[in-house]
């Protein structure tokens, strides 16, 4: 259990670390003195050495986030930002490296933090930064052969209208026309000279198979062909449109490459065209089981920036209590469904999922009454929430005949939290934990060691099931969490079974939190739920950078936001737990049977909306 009341630090540990760095590396490390920025700018030539020092000597061993920013017209360079943390908790040490926009090259940090692997590939794909020394640098979200690097500020999509919203064509005049009519042929697409379809060979598939280890393996007396199997994107157990390409020998996995981008919906590009508030409904669609948790992470990120500005008022106690209520209910909902899906992958076709969805519907009834929508809640605001809890709601709960009945909201919550959900969790536990198929398929399969979990930047249940008690609600607390009593769930084997058990533990801890939240909701009844001024279309966000992180059910959801003081974010990057947790998939799967890979994937609990963004 983490410390309830952290000791008062006299010296800011990050300042201390930065001083160490400057002392050790001299001119190669400089403080980032831009207004609203933090961390250090590192000379690219020294980046790997600095990274090693930061990891080994200063103990910032967890690389949470690596994002690229294009400062076109603001210095004309590309910048790579690395957020590193101590596993024991505390704020981030931010490293930055800059490179010119033309012929952008940086040294790869994969040898220091293997967790940077996919993030650097993403930066190459979308921003066009080449990483020297990267083991497998190719496009990750788009396909090989795609023209250009879409997140660069001067890159225009086929349906480009304007740099920033609200578009003139929609507001205030409101003359909407369909973009395929005024730009039918995608004039922004840069086709190579003499491009014809007749003899064109798409690189998209070729690039995937080129790096797979093929050929014949000769072990002592028997030789086997290596076969490459592609699972997905249309596959019943890849949780959506995820794809794995596995090189197998017999039934044993020798190499595995996740192929993603089949649901790459350009969240970040669209997010940079949107105003700050317009992004809120888009965050719903990241991890579509947990729209409210996504909302909270984004609100935290923007609130960090707004806190520097004038006229900022922190959310009221009631707003924070409602936020925690929503987020913890979401966690229970997500874990129940995640366990259901995992059992799907183990072969229990749909039955456990059906049980999970019964409880999910009851929670969704409450969400719908409060926010107006079952799934896409769009509920949090900068400085509070969009609406207060209603006095009553309609649901079919506790009815034998499924008739809709009117409930008092607080009464409904009390029944849900004190009675219904604990029973659901216990029932799941009872039915599955000692089930022979579950135990024999899960115990000691897909092991991720503690060291690997940290190195691969795993987050959430995957990290904690490997014996690392890292929970952002304790490590860098936000909202009401410092005053709430709960334990950080930890398990130590790092196999599928532990990743299943830890979800049960976390649901029980969430119920503990929810039981403490109910009296707070009662006592704050009538308080304001929103600290900002009503009716503001676009809040003023001061210039600067921020990294808002929240402990989502799937792991650390981070929003790296750069504002230039305008009404749209200059850079809007999402650190998606599903995406980065997959970096360790190959490590977990190698040597296991191909049927186990499906179970391992299920135990990571991915959601494609946030994986591909």
């Amino acid at each position, binding site marked *: 259990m983490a410390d309830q009341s952290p000791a008062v630090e006299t010296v800011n540990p990050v300042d201390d670390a930065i001083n160490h760095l400057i002392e050790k590396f001299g001119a190669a490390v400089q403080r980032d003195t831009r207004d609203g920025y933090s961390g250090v700018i590192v000379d690219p030539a020294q980046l790997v050495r600095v990274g090693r020092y930061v990891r080994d000597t200063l103990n910032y061993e967890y690389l949470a986030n690596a994002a690229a920013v294009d400062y076109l017209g603001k210095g004309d360079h590309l910048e790579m930002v690395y957020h590193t943390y101590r596993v024991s908790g505390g704020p981030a040490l931010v490293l930055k490296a800059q490179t010119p926009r033309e012929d952008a090259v940086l040294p790869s940090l994969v040898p220091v933090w293997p967790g940077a692997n996919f993030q650097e590939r993403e930066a190459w794909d979308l921003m066009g930064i080449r990483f020297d020394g990267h083991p497998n640098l190719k496009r990750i979200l788009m396909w090989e052969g*795609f023209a250009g690097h879409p997140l660069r500020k001067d890159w225009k999509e086929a349906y480009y209208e304007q740099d920033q919203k609200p578009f003139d064509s929609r507001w205030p005049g409101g003359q909407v026309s369909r973009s395929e009519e005024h730009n039918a042929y995608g004039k922004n697409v840069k*086709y190579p000279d003499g491009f014809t379809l007749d003899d064109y060979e798409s690189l998209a598939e070729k690039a995937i198979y080129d790096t797979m280890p093929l050929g014949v393996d000769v072990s002592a007396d028997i030789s086997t062909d290596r076969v490459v199997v592609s699972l997905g994107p249309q596959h019943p157990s890849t949780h959506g449109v995820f794809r794995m390409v596995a090189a197998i020998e017999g039934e044993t996995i020798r190499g595995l490459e996740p192929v993603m*981008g089949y649901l790459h919906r350009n969240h970040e590009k669209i997010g940079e065209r949107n105003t700050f508030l317009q992004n809120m409904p888009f965050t719903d669609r990241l991890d579509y089981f947990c729209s409210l948790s996504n909302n909270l992470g984004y609100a935290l990120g923007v609130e960090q920036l707004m806190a520097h500005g004038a006229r900022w008022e922190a959310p009221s106690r009631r707003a924070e209590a409602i936020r925690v209520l929503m987020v913890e209910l979401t966690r229970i909902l997500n874990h129940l469904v995640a366990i259901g899906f995992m059992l799907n992958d183990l072969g229990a076709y749909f039955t456990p999922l059906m049980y999970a969805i019964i409880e999910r519907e009851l929670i969704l009834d409450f969400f719908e009454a409060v926010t107006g929508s079952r*799934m896409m809640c769009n509920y949090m605001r900068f400085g509070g929430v969009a609406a207060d809890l209603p006095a009553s709601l309609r649901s079919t709960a506790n009815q034998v005949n499924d008739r809709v009945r009117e409930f008092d909201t607080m009464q409904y919550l009390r029944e849900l939290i004190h009675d219904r959900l604990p029973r659901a969790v216990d029932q799941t536990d009872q039915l599955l934990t000692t089930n022979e198929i579950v135990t024999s398929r899960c115990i000691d399969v897909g092991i991720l060691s503690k060291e690997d979990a940290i190195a691969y930047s795993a987050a959430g249940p995957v990290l904690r099931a490997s014996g690392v008690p890292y929970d952002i609600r304790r490590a860098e607390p936000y909202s009401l969490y410092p005053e709430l009593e709960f334990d950080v769930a930890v398990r130590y084997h790092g196999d599928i079974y532990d990743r299943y058990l830890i979800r049960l533990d976390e649901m029980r801890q969430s119920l503990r939190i929810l039981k403490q939240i109910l009296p707070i909701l009662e006592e704050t009844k009538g308080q304001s739920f929103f600290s900002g001024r009503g009716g503001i279309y676009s809040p003023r966000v001061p210039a600067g950078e921020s990294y808002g992180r929240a402990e989502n059910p799937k792991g650390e959801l981070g929003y790296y936001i750069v504002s230039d003081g305008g009404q749209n974010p200059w850079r809007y990057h999402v650190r998606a737990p599903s995406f980065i947790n997959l970096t360790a998939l190959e490590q977990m799967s190698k040597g296991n049977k191909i049927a186990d890979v499906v179970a391992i994937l299920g135990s990571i609990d991915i959601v494609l909306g946030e994986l591909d963004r």
Partner: protein
Amino acid sequence: MTESNFLRELHDPDVPVPEGMQSSVAVTNLRKLADTVYNWGRRNSIWPMAFGLACCAIEMIATASSRFDQARFGMEVLRASPRQADLMLVSGTVTKKMVVPIVRLYNQMSEPKYVLAMGACAIGGGPFKEGYNVVSGVDKYIPVDVYVPGCPPTPQALLWGLIKLQEKIDKQSLGNANSTPWYGRGPSDEVPVPVLGPDIVDPRQAHLLRREAEAVQAQMVQAEGEEN
């Protein structure tokens, strides 16, 4: 369809039936009988393909689960293989990268086959339409039978869409090869699979793109000539 409805629809109005027997007897011709029986069987055993794209897929699963219970319509048998499926529920955003497998899966489905576009994204790109990797509607590539709006549509809305599909099936006839291409002579055409080049290229539009490119080139040559 209730039993008496079923008979009423089947009955040929030109043939008189003695009073008192209207509710239990229908006189009809062979084609009409075949149509009705065939459609009745088909509408009540639609097997959807287990194929979730994005957020809408979760509401699709909710529809299949106990509260909404898709099994009432004989549609609970989700098939993972396109060869065994009758209905493709396009449940979510269709990206350029994904539309290639989608078209291929559609070609692999055996006829008769139906497509239901679920949610704003599958209908027209939805909130992500402006994105560089998003197709503005799956109907740009494959024919769609029913559109269910919403973001995501509620399970009730999806059920409404499925009922609409049943109504559509009721109206189909073995004799009309225009409305039901699979009853015509010979195999129906496959949809050409798009190519992932510098951007996605639909082979059906290749000649249009070439014409546009030539027009732009001609303009550039002309502009150069004027400069000189």
